[in-house]
């Protein structure tokens, strides 16, 4: 088992008062809590902070933790032989145990010995998927390591490997639930749920907003001016889009029902955002033609600007 220095995590001395520990925790929680902080690394940090506080705030658990002695963080160690709560004859292996699991039983210990049904713990997992996977639905293989109670107060990490079928129609940021896939309930309590936090991986072409998709549609100046029929990639394959004459940059062209499928029925839309691009390295002939156009045209794109004296 790897040692973790809970005092160091909270930034307090080993003899800190309960009040100091609470204050230190609250300060760090405000900084790193995933509901409050935008720090991308906040969630991981908060987990550590929360684990440390859960143990140190409970006088019994804190005393048990102190009894483990002081080790270097990350150092492999075993609790002293007389340490523990119900791990029994010493045959209990600490190899696959996470330090936090040892203390999970404190606080709720009075209840655990009884026969009151305790619902299993809920687990939460991040599930990044591609926009294509959201479009057609997918199967996701999950490899988790979860705590399992042996009923006598001992806890060990067990691997949990299974596939989750993701229905089509999920959106970025949506949560899905796998009932019964969380921790096992004790004394006949129901199993917990496993929650999947769906997020979309960045896509080379599309940006998703709810069930709608946005796509850049680069047009040449002449396509935008004269109108054109252009091929646009959609998730279901390429379609032809008619670009009306006189289309401007930034205009949104809607391809109805070409977005992501909705739960039940219906689909979002695909919006093509027009962007006029000029040839990056025009040939002499192209330059000459643009020059002719410039000479022939009376069009003033800045007619709305106030007329200055040009200084």
């Amino acid at each position: 088992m790897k040692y973790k220095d809970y005092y160091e995590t909270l930034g307090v001395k080993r003899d800190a008062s309960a009040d100091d520990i609470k204050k230190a925790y609250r300060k760090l929680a405000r900084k790193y809590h995933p509901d409050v902080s935008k720090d991308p690394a906040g969630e991981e940090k908060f987990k550590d902070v929360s684990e440390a506080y859960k143990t140190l705030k409970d006088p019994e658990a804190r005393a048990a933790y102190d009894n483990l002695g002081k080790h270097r963080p990350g150092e492999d160690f075993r609790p002293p032989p007389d340490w523990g709560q119900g791990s029994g004859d010493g045959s209990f292996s600490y190899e696959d145990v996470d330090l936090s699991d040892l203390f999970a039983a404190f606080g709720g210990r009075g209840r655990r010995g009884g026969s009151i049904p305790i619902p299993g713990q809920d687990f939460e997992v991040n599930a990044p998927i591609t926009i294509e996977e959201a479009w057609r639905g997918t199967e996701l293989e999950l490899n988790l390591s979860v705590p399992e109670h042996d009923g006598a107060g001992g806890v060990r990490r067990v691997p949990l490997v299974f596939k989750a079928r993701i229905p089509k129609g999920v959106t970025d940021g949506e949560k899905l639930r796998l009932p019964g896939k969380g921790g096992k309930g004790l004394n006949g309590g129901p199993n917990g749920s496993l929650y999947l936090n769906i997020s979309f991986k960045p896509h080379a072409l599309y940006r998703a907003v709810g069930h709608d998709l946005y796509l850049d549609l680069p047009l040449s100046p002449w396509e935008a001016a004269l109108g054109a029929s252009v091929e646009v990639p959609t998730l279901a394959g390429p379609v032809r889009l008619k670009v009306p004459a006189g289309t401007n940059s930034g205009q949104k062209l809607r391809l109805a029902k070409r977005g992501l499928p909705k739960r039940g029925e219906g689909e979002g839309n695909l919006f093509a955002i027009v962007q006029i691009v000029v040839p990056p390295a025009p040939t002499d002939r192209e330059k000459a033609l643009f020059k002719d156009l410039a000479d022939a045209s009376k069009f003033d794109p800045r007619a709305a600007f106030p007329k200055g004296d040009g200084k």
Partner: protein
Amino acid sequence: MKIQITDAKWLCEHPEVSLEELVELSGLSTELLRELVDYGALAPIDLQSAETAASQTEVRSTQWRFTADCVVAVQTVSRLREDFDLDANALSVAMMLIERIHGLEAQLQELQSQLPQLKRQAQTR
């Protein structure tokens, strides 16, 4: 080893959830959820106005229906209560602010999605 396949379910089977379902999905007490409705942090779908809400809270709470979005909201409440030790009043203020931030983030994401990618790349450079 054969890998078992499990269907991931939507947070709730229906687009609407009852108070009991919210209790089950959040682990919060019925009393706390009722309080949050009183403070206006959670709004049942069929509450017409604040006055009828006040007079009918006790009578009608079993018939309350909430939108499915409330499931995520009450789970957030549950985390905040656990991790920050907040009471119902503080929770309702926090919820209001979090909702506003989510609204702004959604708007920001929508606007950013409409910016041409090339321009965005130029900006980040």
